[in-house]
């Protein structure tokens, strides 16, 4: 169940949730400290992937912001103007220098994609929603852990079905990615025969 919530959170953060987030979910997030720390961790990962990490990584950002807000709300404004030139300069040159970071980001991205995919499945409805919605209302861990295994047993087939769909999605992504790759590789091969005829570019796709 916790893993499910995390996926939900991840999808929500990436604006990729199929359903709009419910009030219960927000309440749950506000009450659940573990989920909150997960949330901030996800945000941090997202920042890292996008290359927007501050020079000094401040893990406990929320409390700092809260402090800052208490002292002087306008502190946020100069910080924003400062970040503007940074965003503009974040062009290729810096990209080229940061190539090494891509590999790390890639692994994280792969995990994120998997999580979202699982969440986005149509099979989602197979998981009994009442259990989900009652979780925040009761606010106790015990009923959830009790409910979880039974739900799994009932939905063994649904899980298998989900895995099949996941597998298929992965394969489809593999083909889409490879097609793009092959298209990029193509022009060079096309150049050789094209030399005899004229300077024609072997036709290529639009994207």
């Amino acid at each position, binding site marked *: 169940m916790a893993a499910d919530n995390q996926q939900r959170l991840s999808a929500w953060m990436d604006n990729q949730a199929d359903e709009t987030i419910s009030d219960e979910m927000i309440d749950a997030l506000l009450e659940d400290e573990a989920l909150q720390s997960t949330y901030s961790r996800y945000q941090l990962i997202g920042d890292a992937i996008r290359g927007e990490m501050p020079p000094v990584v401040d893990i406990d950002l929320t409390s700092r912001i809260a402090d800052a807000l208490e002292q002087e709300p306008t502190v946020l404004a100069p910080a924003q103007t400062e970040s503007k030139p940074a965003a503009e300069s974040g062009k290729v*040159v810096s990209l080229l220098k940061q*190539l090494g970071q891509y590999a790390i980001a890639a692994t994280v991205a792969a995990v994120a994609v998997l999580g979202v995919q699982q969440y986005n499945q149509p099979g989602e409805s197979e998981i009994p929603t009442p259990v989900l919605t009652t979780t925040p209302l009761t606010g106790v861990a015990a009923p959830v852990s009790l409910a979880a295994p039974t739900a799994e047993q009932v939905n063994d087939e649904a899980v298998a079905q989900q895995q099949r769909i996941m597998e298929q999605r992965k394969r489809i992504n*593999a*083909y*889409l990615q490879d097609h793009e790759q*092959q298209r990029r590789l*193509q022009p060079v091969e096309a150049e050789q025969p094209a030399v005899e005829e004229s300077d024609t570019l072997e036709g*290529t796709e639009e*994207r």
Partner: protein
Amino acid sequence: MTRTLFRSVVGGLLILLTISHAKGADKAPELLLQRMSDAFRQESYVISMVQNFGGRIEPLRLEHGFVDGHEISHLSYLNGPLRDIVRKDGTVSYLESERPAYSLKARQMDGPIPKPFLGDISAISENYRFVMGGKSRTAGRIAQLVRITPTEPDRYGLLVWSDVETGFLLRADVISREGDIVEQLQVVSIRLMDEPSEHLQSIAASQLPQTVPQPERRDTEDLVEWNVGWMPAGFELVNQDQHRLALTNDVVDYMMFSDGLIKFSVYINKVESQEERGSLVTRGALSLFSLINSGVEITVVGRMPPETAQRIAETVYPVVEKPRNKGLPNAG
């Protein structure tokens, strides 16, 4: 007698004139498209544009110029994970957060603008007809419409708007045979520059990722041969090999076909599942159709109508009797 001769001469001249005039009119759209690719290759500019497909919006920025005689262009995807394509003369580098950066030797980048519009438009004139349309206001400029329709059905057409003043592409719609817009590229602003920007200069000075050597062509005679029973006329086989898919590590037999404007891929993959099924995925103009038939998965991917992809996939079959005369002399 002289009068009839005179008449026939005048008549012939008139016919000649009309023919040459008609020819000139036929050439006009092609010349316009040629002018577009000249503009893309010769000018220095920054173009902001938006790509629109399947309910998604993709903002992009394309910068192009010359630094010390080197042609530099930079395409940047502005939303989501970092994706950049940089071209320095004949080397194109792909910088993406999803995988390590790499460079390829290529004349044009694989970006949102159809490659013939950046290169030689006559490459597609065999399979597509160009027809002049009307003028309209696009991206705040006066634009001339050119319709690019496939000579054979079963694939998408293009509507292209070209800036009357500068020749640049201002808008391109991929349209289905019914006239529905499948995908759209809309330029928002064009800024022409006299001098290359600092940004382009810094790219020119920077080190691009290492060029990946071209994968060696394997001897296709070692492969099981597959035939595609049907495909729209005008497509030709441009590549055939066997390679691994990066994501799943599956080994696939692979073929690529091109008609000058679009390319489609055919994948043949052995799978354990015996259950027969087909699946279809579309993203804007891109269609993927996959079917499993007696343990073999056949997948067709390309920017074509889903029905076409399905029809192609359904006609792929193995060549049963494979001539093996090459191996025998070596053995003996």
